[in-house]
C-alpha cells in the first residue's frame, strides 16, 4: 500500500541512501539493511535499551523510531564508538571490570554510557544508576556496570586533563 521513501542517513560517519517503507524501524535498517549488528533487539518494546544508538546527540532506542524519521540525521552505533583495534575507554573498562557476562545488553549499555559521560563527566554512583535506567541487564546485577562506567570516567577525565 505505502510508497517506499528515499532515506538518507549518516551512520558512523558513512553516508547511506536507500529506499524503504515508512514503517521500517531504524533497528531493522541498521541490522538487516546495513548489516550493522552491534545494536541488539532485546524486548522490541522500548524497555530494555539493547538497541540504543546516538542520534544527533541523543540516546535513542532504535526500535522506537522509524528510519524515515531519522532521515537527514547522523546515527552512531557501538561500531562507531570503538573496535577491536582501538577500544573506547568504556569498552576497555567493561572488559577490565567484568561489566558484562552474556554481552547482549553491552552495546546499548556502552552507547548510552558515552552520552551519559558527555553530560556528566564524573558521575556519582547514583547519577550512573539513574542515567543508565533505560538499559536492562539480566546478568550482572549492575554492580560491575557501575564500576566500569566509574573507571572509564576516571580514565577519560585523566586523559582530558593530560591533553590540556
Amino acid at each position, binding site marked *: *500500500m*505505502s*510508497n517506499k*521513501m528515499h532515506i538518507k542517513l549518516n551512520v558512523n560517519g558513512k553516508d547511506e541512501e536507500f529506499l524503504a*517503507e*515508512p*514503517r521500517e*524501524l531504524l533497528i531493522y535498517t541498521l541490522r538487516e539493511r546495513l548489516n550493522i549488528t552491534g545494536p541488539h533487539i532485546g524486548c*522490541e*518494546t*522500548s*524497555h530494555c*535499551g539493547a538497541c*540504543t544508538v546516538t542520534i544527533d546527540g*541523543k*540516546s*535513542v*532506542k532504535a*526500535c*522506537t*523510531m*522509524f528510519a*524515515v*524519521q531519522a532521515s537527514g540525521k547522523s546515527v552512531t552505533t557501538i561500531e562507531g564508538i570503538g573496535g577491536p583495534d582501538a577500544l573506547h575507554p568504556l569498552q576497555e573498562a567493561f572488559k577490565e571490570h567484568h561489566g558484562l557476562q552474556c554481552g547482549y545488553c553491552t552495546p546499548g549499555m556502552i552507547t*548510552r554510557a558515552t552520552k*551519559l559521560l558527555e553530560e556528566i563527566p564524573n558521575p556519582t554512583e547514583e547519577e550512573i544508576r*539513574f*542515567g*543508565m*535506567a*533505560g538499559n536492562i541487564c539480566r546478568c550482572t546485577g549492575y554492580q560491575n556496570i557501575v564500576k566500569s562506567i566509574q573507571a572509564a570516567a576516571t580514565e577519560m577525565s585523566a586523559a582530558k586533563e593530560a591533553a590540556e
Partner: protein
Amino acid sequence: MIPAAFEYHRPQDMDGVLAVLQEHGDDARVMAGGHSLIPMMKLRMADVPHLIDLQDVGGMSDIEVGTDTIRIGAMVTQADIIDHAALAGAAPILREAALQIADPQVRYMGTVGGNVANGDPGNDMPGLMQCLDATFTLVGSDGARAVKARDFYEAAYMTAREDDEVLTAVTIPLPSGGYAYEKQKRKIGDYATAAAAVQITKNGDTCTSVAIAMTNLSDTPIYSEAAGAALIGTTLDDAALKASVAAMLDDIDPADDNRGPIAFKKHVAGVILRRAIERAWSRA
C-alpha cells in the same frame, strides 16, 4: 513487531500539517516524539494510515518563562524540561515530575505536547497540568482556541481536541508555594500505580490554597477540588489530611488491572497523596 503500512508526511509548517489533517480526517495522526504512538502502532493497537511527523514544523520547541505565565511548546521534550534552569526555578514541580517519567532515552524523545494530547490515563503530564491549571492551545483550520487542562480529558484517549486540530502549546500560570509530584510505580519506565500532583500555599500555619490532581486512577486524570477544599483553612493536622484523602478517594475510579486490584490502588492513592501533601507543605 512491524506496524501496519502507512503513508509518512513530514510537512515544513503548520499549514502543511493542517492540510494533511483536512484531507485525511481521523485517518491521520500527528506525531511528536512518537514514544507513545509508535509502540501502539507496533502492537497494532493504533491504526494510522497517515502519519504526520511534526519535527520540521518549528516554533514549538521553546520554553518561555514570563512574569505571570510559562509557555511550553508542544515539542519540548521531558529532557528539555529537566535541563531548563529558569523553568526549574519558576515551576519546579515540572522537573520533579519529568524526572519520574520513563527513562533517559525516552525522555530525550517524549514531548510535553504528546504526553498531554495523547489522552492516555497513564501519562503523568495531564494530571500535572490540571494541578497547575494549565491551558492548552489547539490550532485548526479555523485558527487557534484555548482549552483548560481541567476541561480537556473526556475518557481514555478521548479529549476535547478535534481530529483536525493540533495541540501546539501549554500555558501555565506561574505557580506559587510548595509543590510535590509523588509517583508510585512498579519499575523504571512504568506508568504510575498512583501518582499525585500537589501545589499548596500557606499563610503562617494555615493552608490558603491547594490544587490536587491524581494520575492513572480513572480513565482520565482527576482534579480533585474536594480534596483541596478539605485542606484550605486548616493547619494540615491529621484530621484534615484524612479528610482530604477521603475526598480524593471519592473522586477516583481505578480499574482492576496488572498494577493491582481496586482496593490496592485506592490504598496506594491514599499513601501517595498524603506523602505529596506533606512534602509540598514542607516546601511551602
